[in-house]
């Protein structure tokens, strides 16, 4: 696992992002870029969850999109078929994906490393196949966000609401990473045996961090359903799981601020070369490889490029999958 956790004060990244967001929202006339900004915010929330789970706690998940899907489909089902309000439906949706996340956490107790990666991948695939078989048409007509009668569906307003949520989650996760719980999940990642000897209940910690990551994935899925208005399984395929992973890796493992940067970068990067539209996915793959090879700390570590080289190159024997 990467050895560095950025040590900026917890309030720095969130405030900074908040300022940039309001600036962006105010100046944006183009509805299109507002939408992309909203989408990157929605993915950022799930990416923060994944960076806590994978970056901070070392529990890999290749099926995170399935959790977003569960929340999005629950939201659509409750609002379209049962006329529930967007917010109450959201609460149920987030609860649903958190519950599934806790089950995945229970799986993480029995197996680790590669096998955990495969179980989460299998979960993601089961979700896509199941929804494609049972609900090929998905859902349409999901109402925009509204609290009671207050309609927050206007793109500019929704953009600010989503990014307010991002800032909130960013502050929370930055504080979490630095708290006692944050240290215990880092210990779990670095050396489970030593962590247990220090009094960390591995089972409860793993299930808890899976629960947090799934709750955030649920919020992301809920907001996605409200943003998109229509929900089908194509939006929650393994491609999204891989993209979330790429956001977390290029943002810098374990750094919530990095996850936000990774999400914004991945959603907005294609805007750079609009003419090279078809090279988009190819570039994601290449960027991932470059970052893995050159920048283990991810984009957030650019400031630390002169980081002290790892003095003791630990010749780690191939212990069982980390």
């Amino acid at each position, binding site marked *: 696992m990467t050895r560095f956790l950025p040590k900026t004060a917890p309030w720095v990244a969130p405030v900074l992002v908040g300022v940039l967001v309001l600036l*962006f929202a105010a100046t944006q006339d*183009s*509805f299109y*870029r507002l939408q992309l900004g909203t989408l990157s915010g929605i993915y950022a929330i799930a990416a923060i969850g994944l960076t806590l789970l994978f970056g901070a706690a070392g529990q890999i998940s290749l099926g995170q999109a399935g959790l977003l899907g569960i929340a999005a489909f629950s939201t659509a089902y409750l609002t379209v078929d049962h006329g529930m309000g967007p917010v109450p439906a959201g609460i149920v949706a987030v609860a649903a994906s958190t519950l599934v996340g806790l089950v995945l956490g229970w799986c993480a107790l029995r197996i680790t490393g590669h096998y955990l990666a495969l179980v989460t991948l299998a979960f993601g695939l089961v979700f896509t196949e199941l929804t494609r*078989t049972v609900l*090929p048409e998905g859902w349409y007509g999901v109402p925009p966000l509204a609290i009671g009668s207050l309609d927050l569906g206007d793109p500019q307003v929704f953009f600010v609401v989503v990014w307010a949520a991002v800032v909130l989650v960013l502050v929370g996760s930055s504080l979490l990473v630095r708290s006692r719980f944050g240290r215990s999940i880092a210990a779990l990642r670095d050396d489970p045996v030593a962590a247990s000897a220090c009094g960390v209940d591995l089972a409860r910690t793993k299930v808890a961090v899976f629960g947090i990551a799934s709750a955030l994935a649920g919020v992301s899925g809920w907001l996605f359903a409200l943003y998109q*208005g229509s929900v089908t399984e194509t939006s929650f395929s393994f491609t999204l799981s891989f993209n979330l992973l790429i956001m977390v890796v290029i943002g810098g493992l374990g750094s919530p601020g990095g996850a*936000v940067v990774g999400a914004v970068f991945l959603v907005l990067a294609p*805007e750079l070369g609009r003419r090279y539209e078809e090279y988009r996915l190819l570039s994601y793959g290449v960027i991932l490889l470059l970052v893995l090879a050159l920048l283990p700390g991810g984009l957030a570590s650019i*400031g630390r490029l002169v980081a002290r080289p790892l003095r003791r190159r630990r010749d780690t024997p191939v212990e069982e999958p980390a």
Partner: protein
Amino acid sequence: MWRRLTAVLATAAVSLSLAACGGGGEGGDGSGETGPIRIGAILGISGRFAFVGEPQKQALELAQERINAAGGISGRQVEFVVYDDEVDETKSVPLANRLISEDKVVAIIGPSITVPALAIQPIVERAQVPNLTLTSKAIWEGKPDSYVFHTTPREEVEVKSVLDFVKDQLKVTKVGVIYDRQPYGTGNLAYLKQFAPEYGLQIVAEEGIENNDTNADAQVQRVRGAGAEAVVVWVGDPAASSVAKAIHQAGWTVPVIASSAIAGPRFAELAGPAAEGAYSNSTYDTAAPPPAQKEFLEAFQARYNSPPTQFAGFAYDSAYALKAAIEAAAGKTDGASIRQGLIDMPPLDGVVATYDFSAENHNGIPNGPLFYIVQIKNGAFQVVFDTRK
């Protein structure tokens, strides 16, 4: 500590500024009275439905060249801005917004497939940008002031032509259906089951398949087990050709009727000898095409040296429908004028049919029979029956 602060600051600022300056590229306002008229298009060019989107993109390129060569629309050149949504509505929604607010297009053609087409409907209605949707499923909900128009035949038309052919020409009663598990297949399956009794036919088996599947042994085996005397295949390639191959390999001689999705050269190319004898629906009378169709078939063949599929025809007709609409609106290119232009324009003799929109009927193609039944004879589709007569 400050080093890290600058790091996060730098990268976040860079990323967000990407958004600010990113798409600034094409300046100019497409809907102004001067400069080129920009018409947007969202097609499934890559991914699972490339066989639909690719020919449509080619058809629009051909239309742009021919319209501009003939003096453009009301004296202004036309430019088609074509985007690929890979048939994923997560992409079609932002692309629609990009066309409207960034590229300032006057109208949008497409998307080609049902799910993205439904997804962008609220966007075009809110932005009041006329949308000629290319999906066969009925998207227009009947509201006269809607901005959505169809330049494709309604699904029932093709279903009825298939059922009619099975009853009268093949003279069998038990039919097995292998359908695309996506809305394109499930929608038409529903129509098949609805109208089959009217033609005295019985649907004895329904087997779902994924458009990209390259093995259909299981589906064919189960349809055969159900006693089907004819197999209706409502899915695109490569799945359709896999069904033909599975039937051929199982040594089962049964008539196969596929939907117009595969009425093109690729089906025989993929299925090889297994394609021989398979029927399909086509909107082209390749033997004696009417004048507009003949000109398009020859121009497309010359430009891309491969015969156009019906999907290309719909896209080409949409381009000319918009041309006629703008001319009917005396060159005005705001959304409302074009919408009214589509309604007021004289009937358009298009490649596929004669288009006539009205406030009450946004389906350009009349509801009557339209298709020719075609059959693969030594590797190519030939017209064998005209459902119109």
